[in-house]
């Protein structure tokens, strides 16, 4: 029995060894596939948007605020996306204001202060936090946070910039924590030991030694958080209230309680209603291009910040 098994296994091994050229070809092809996928994404999104690209009035798109894809009789359609850009930018900024301190604080605590079981449980919990799907966050924003915000702030509408930003902050934070933690861990222990020998306290080490040493990694973590916030879709659709007004006074903190609409929410809610192949449909793909280009730029930049232009793939 045993000999038969080995011989069978031997046969299998022979086959697998013999197939080495084929397997190597497959591995190479798969290895290069990511480039193909990114190129394909660009290709197909540009292709759907292509017919309208020469006709897009970019001034109107970026700097006016009337998004009227199906105009009233006698009017012309207009595609001013400024209020959605404001929505995306404001959700990103406010959510980062919440997420960056929390994320960095948690990363420092987990990496430098916590030990043993506490450290492990925090890491596991934050990992679970990262796993909560976007649609569940949307549900939390719409059903749970909405009445809380109405009560706490005494406002009429609980789905607003603040609600959406809290939700997005919690979605972006696990990534900020894990990348910052990696960055802190990558600082050699000799740095810590040298500072300790000079009589520095743990906090002084963090503040004066680790932050400067890990600043590229921490910056990249925040940038990826920004990327996540800009691209978030289902949760912001349900939690931001979809207002299309740009506030007049940005210094007034009450704008936190205004409804906003993001670029992503516009695509997801209008694509099904647009006439397939029509101008509106194509303009939604133009918004897709804006999001795609932005996300690639932010990811490549943060990659370069961490690893440099040449990159060291073994330490990736």
């Amino acid at each position, binding site marked *: 029995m045993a000999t038969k098994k080995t011989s069978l296994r031997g046969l299998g091994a022979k086959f697998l060894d013999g197939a080495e050229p084929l397997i190597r070809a497959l591995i190479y092809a798969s290895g290069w596939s990511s480039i193909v996928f990114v190129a394909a994404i660009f290709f197909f999104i540009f292709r759907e948007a292509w017919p309208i690209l020469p006709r897009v009035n970019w001034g109107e798109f970026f700097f006016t605020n009337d998004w009227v894809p199906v105009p*009233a009789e*006698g009017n012309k359609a207009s595609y001013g996306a400024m209020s959605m850009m404001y929505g995306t930018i404001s959700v990103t900024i406010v959510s980062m204001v919440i997420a960056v301190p929390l994320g960095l604080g948690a990363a420092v605590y987990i990496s430098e202060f916590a030990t043993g079981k506490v450290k492990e449980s925090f890491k596991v919990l934050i990992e679970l936090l990262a796993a909560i799907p976007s649609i569940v966050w949307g549900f939390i924003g719409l059903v749970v946070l909405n009445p809380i915000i109405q009560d706490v702030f005494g406002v009429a*509408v609980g789905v607003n910039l603040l609600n959406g930003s809290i939700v997005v902050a919690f979605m972006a934070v696990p990534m900020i924590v894990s990348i910052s933690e990696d960055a802190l861990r990558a600082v050699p222990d000799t740095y810590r030991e040298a500072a300790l020998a000079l009589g520095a306290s743990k906090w002084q080490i963090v503040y004066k030694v680790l932050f400067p040493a890990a600043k590229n990694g921490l910056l990249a973590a925040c940038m990826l958080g920004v990327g996540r916030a800009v691209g978030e879709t289902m949760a912001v659709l349900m939690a931001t209230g979809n207002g299309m007004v740009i506030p007049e006074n940005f210094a007034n903190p009450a704008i936190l309680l205004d409804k906003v609409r993001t670029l992503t929410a516009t695509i997801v*809610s*209008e694509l099904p209603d647009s*006439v*397939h*192949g029509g101008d509106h449909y194509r303009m939604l793909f133009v918004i897709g291009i804006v999001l795609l280009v932005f996300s690639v730029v932010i990811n490549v930049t943060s990659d370069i910040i961490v690893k440099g232009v040449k990159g060291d793939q073994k330490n990736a």
Partner: protein
Amino acid sequence: MALSFTSCGKKTTPTSGSAIQINGSDTMLQVGIAWADAYKAVNPDVTITVNGEGSGTGIAALINGTIEISQSSRALKPEEIESIKASHGGVAPVEHIVGYDGIAVFVHKDNPVKSLSIPQLKEIFGEGGSIDNWNQVGGPDLKMEIVGRNNASGTYVFFRNIVCGKGVEFKNAVSPMSGSTAVVEFCTTTPAAIGYSGMGYVNANVGLVGVSKEDGGTAYEPNAESVGSGTFPIARPLYIFTVGEPTGATKDYLDWIKGPSGQKVVEAEKFVALPK
């Protein structure tokens, strides 16, 4: 390629019973599901898939030939009719009216305002309109929170054309919500809210205002009587489109929808049935 992919679907092969794919209007999602659910008892061999993200998707799917029935809360546009003809060898789409809908104007349940006229609604929703506080229409001193459907939906276009007339768009202050239910939910939880969506989405927790054609005219709430007699000013048909006259299972299903049992479902879903 297209053939090989679509033919691997169980629900699309005639051997195991027939299948009807439905897509289209968000307004008609609920009634579409209710029809399909009730039809299960009539003919269990037919599998009916219902989707409802928007009228545009349904028509696009009809153009691509991936569905049999497109539900829509708006009529076909000329370019859509051309596209359907072009992709189906000149066969024109057929329009079936399967019920009627009045677009209800929703407010919070505690809102004392019980009726609004079309000119008032124009001032509330239309660009350059002067009404943005409830005290301008006899309510409390509260800034209005105006919501609606997204800027391309059939409901939006219909409501805007009736309320604002030619050449007037909505204010930017009208927030486009993600669907009919979202509008109703918003009006349920927000004291200052005003919004619109299909009358099928009326429920006990939200307030409804009557709508009159002119200032001082009689206001009607959308119901079977006012929509059926045409006195409710913002009423429209609910459509089903097929490519050419339907045949086989699709025809049976459509006949059933237009028949007494199907129309009973329309009433149960709080829309208005076809006149008998």
